[in-house]
């Protein structure tokens, strides 16, 4: 395909998609650099698939532009776009065998030497010898790999993957992740990858975008998003966070001063998304430490008092719930370093943190604390 210069970026400019009165994608703008691995995360129904479909040409944006390498493609028919899709539901052709499914795109473009390429592709997804089978004679995971092979074989400029690894077992999934990443770096294809697996998104992607209700809430490198989320939604969608409702009272040097529930806290100004008004003071559970109530805190730390109400041992760490005097339940993940024992339920404690690990997010007036319940995979996502 012609547009292979560094300007082969995929750009969405103010793209909106409405279904009747329902807005599925709301004024979305983003740039995906050529050759990058871009992950799209978000709750079910937030518009991820719709976004991909618009890039593929299967859905017409209600307004806005889609550009590939500077050229407007949003009016092009799907078969005119150098874009291929791995469908969420595979969409394998039931009347064609696996070989013909994979060869479909090549045949439509009248490519010669099909057999060799197809065989290579099938072995890449570990399906050698399955060429003569029909899709309904394969397992879910095998079908998914065929869908992948069928798109990859065309070496598109942009590959859209709609939860392509959802049906695979963990081992195969890791394998395919490595394989995908390898292919992506080798061939220099732009991957746009929709996934529900946060770890997958964080380990594979150069850039992660978190979508919510048709909008992108935050976009950036995985570590950046995790360490300094932009909104309460992101803070609790990617990993989890303890968000305390507070109000900015002023600044002191390079610190923002916040009052919450009668206590005063400080956060470095550069860790604050807003500098006045109602805010959420956020700390990740693994950045909280527990100390017996009344003990002196390490230098510079600040904390809140509470009582341990729950603890669950999950191997690499122990997850505690600490109930504060005003009834918020803070999650605290303590690594199992072997130093210091488990804290029994009922113990009065101080949960403390270093201000540099906290962050400040805007809060709608009247919104209370946002603390997420302990999720089993939160640790995995945080690691």
């Amino acid at each position: 395909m012609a547009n292979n210069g560094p300007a082969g970026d995929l750009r969405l400019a103010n793209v909106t998609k409405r279904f009747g009165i329902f807005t599925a994608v709301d004024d979305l703008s983003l740039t995906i650099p050529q050759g990058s691995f871009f992950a799209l995360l978000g709750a079910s129904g937030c518009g991820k698939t719709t976004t991909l479909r618009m890039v593929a040409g299967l859905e017409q944006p209600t307004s806005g532009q889609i550009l590939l390498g500077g050229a407007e493609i949003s009016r092009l028919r799907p078969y005119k776009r150098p874009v291929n899709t791995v469908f969420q539901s595979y969409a394998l052709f039931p009347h064609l065998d696996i070989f013909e499914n994979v060869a479909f795109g090549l045949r439509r473009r009248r490519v010669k030497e099909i057999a060799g390429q197809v065989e290579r592709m099938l072995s890449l997804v570990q399906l050698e010898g399955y060429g003569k089978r029909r899709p309904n004679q394969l397992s879910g995971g095998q079908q998914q790999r065929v869908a992948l092979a069928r798109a990859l074989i065309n070496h598109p400029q942009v590959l859209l993957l709609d939860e392509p690894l959802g049906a695979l077992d963990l081992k195969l999934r890791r394998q395919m992740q490595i394989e995908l990443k390898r292919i992506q770096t080798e061939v220099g294809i732009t991957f746009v990858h929709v996934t529900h697996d946060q770890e997958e998104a964080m380990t594979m992607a150069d850039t992660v975008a978190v979508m919510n209700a048709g909008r992108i809430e935050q976009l950036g490198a995985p570590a950046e998003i995790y360490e300094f989320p932009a909104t309460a939604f992101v803070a609790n969608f990617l990993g989890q966070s303890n968000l305390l409702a507070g109000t900015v009272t002023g600044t002191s040097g390079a610190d923002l001063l916040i009052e919450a529930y009668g206590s005063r806290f400080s956060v470095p100004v550069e860790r604050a998304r807003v500098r006045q008004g109602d805010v959420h003071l956020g700390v990740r559970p693994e950045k909280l430490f527990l100390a017996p109530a009344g003990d002196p805190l390490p230098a510079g730390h600040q904390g809140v008092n509470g009582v341990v109400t729950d603890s669950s041992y999950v191997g690499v760490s122990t997850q505690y719930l600490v109930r504060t005097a005003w009834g918020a339940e803070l999650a605290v993940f303590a690594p199992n370093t072997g130093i210091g024992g488990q804290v029994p339920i009922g113990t009065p404690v101080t949960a403390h943190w270093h201000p540099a690990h906290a962050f400040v997010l805007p809060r709608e007036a009247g919104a209370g604390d946002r603390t997420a319940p302990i999720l089993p995979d939160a640790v995995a996502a945080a690691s």
Partner: protein
Amino acid sequence: MSVLSHVGAPVGGPKDTVREPVAGQRRRRLLPYLLLLPGALWLALFFAVPAVQLAATSLYDPAGSLDLGYAMTWAFGNYPDALAAYWPQFARSFAYAGIATVLAVLLGYPLAYAIAQKAGRWKNLMLVCVVAPMFTSFLLRTLAWKTILSDNGWLVGLLRDLHLLAPDGRLLATPAAVVLGLTYNFLPFMVLPLYANLERLDYRLLEAASDLYASPVRVFRRVTLPLSMPGLVAGTLLFFIPASGDYINAELLGTPNEYMIGNVIDSAFLVRLDYPQAAALSFLFMAVILAIVFVYVRRAGTDEVV
């Protein structure tokens, strides 16, 4: 065999899933009309127009004749007159077709159920067996029934020997023979939609149900039957409509005492040449059928019939 499994599948079919087709283009707006045009035109010209014309004919002056010509006098009296003259045939049509429908459900449901859920690898063969008789002419099969039911046939002999039939009792030329013929002739129209529906019935649902309700009878009443309702509605309609309009069975297996409305309309059109009356009868009949269909579909809770 998927060929036949789709016959009559309509009512049970999934709701139209119109995911807005790829990219709206000008000519896409016109396309559906172009696709519809020939067929719709055909139906309009050769079905709708004649129907309207029939409605008009039914209001012509009954005093007219083919030779003298007909005058449009808005003779609504044709309807009560036709009904008064032929209400027994009307009643008979619906009674015979109704009884035959019940019989066809009793015979067709187990057959469709067995083919869909129990036949295993004999499924295709059994399905073919349901359809293949349709290829032997309808008339021939009815004539064959005439042979089977005839007074000196083996069936009558057997029934007489078993004292199930009086020594001078007959089968042919009785209402029973006509109902039997109707049941027989239109049975595939009952079985095929039922089969298409029951085939899609998830066996795991039945297993889950037998977990919950335990008794097979209750599983059938609570799960299988409600789920197969669309198929049953389609089947009964596709059966009842042609059965009530039929006159071949009454003609071949019955006597004028068993004549149905179809016989009357046929002779009014082709023998007596009394067009206004024939049209009034036709229209009345069609109206009743449509009323039955709509009430039935409403009550059965299947909105889209086609």
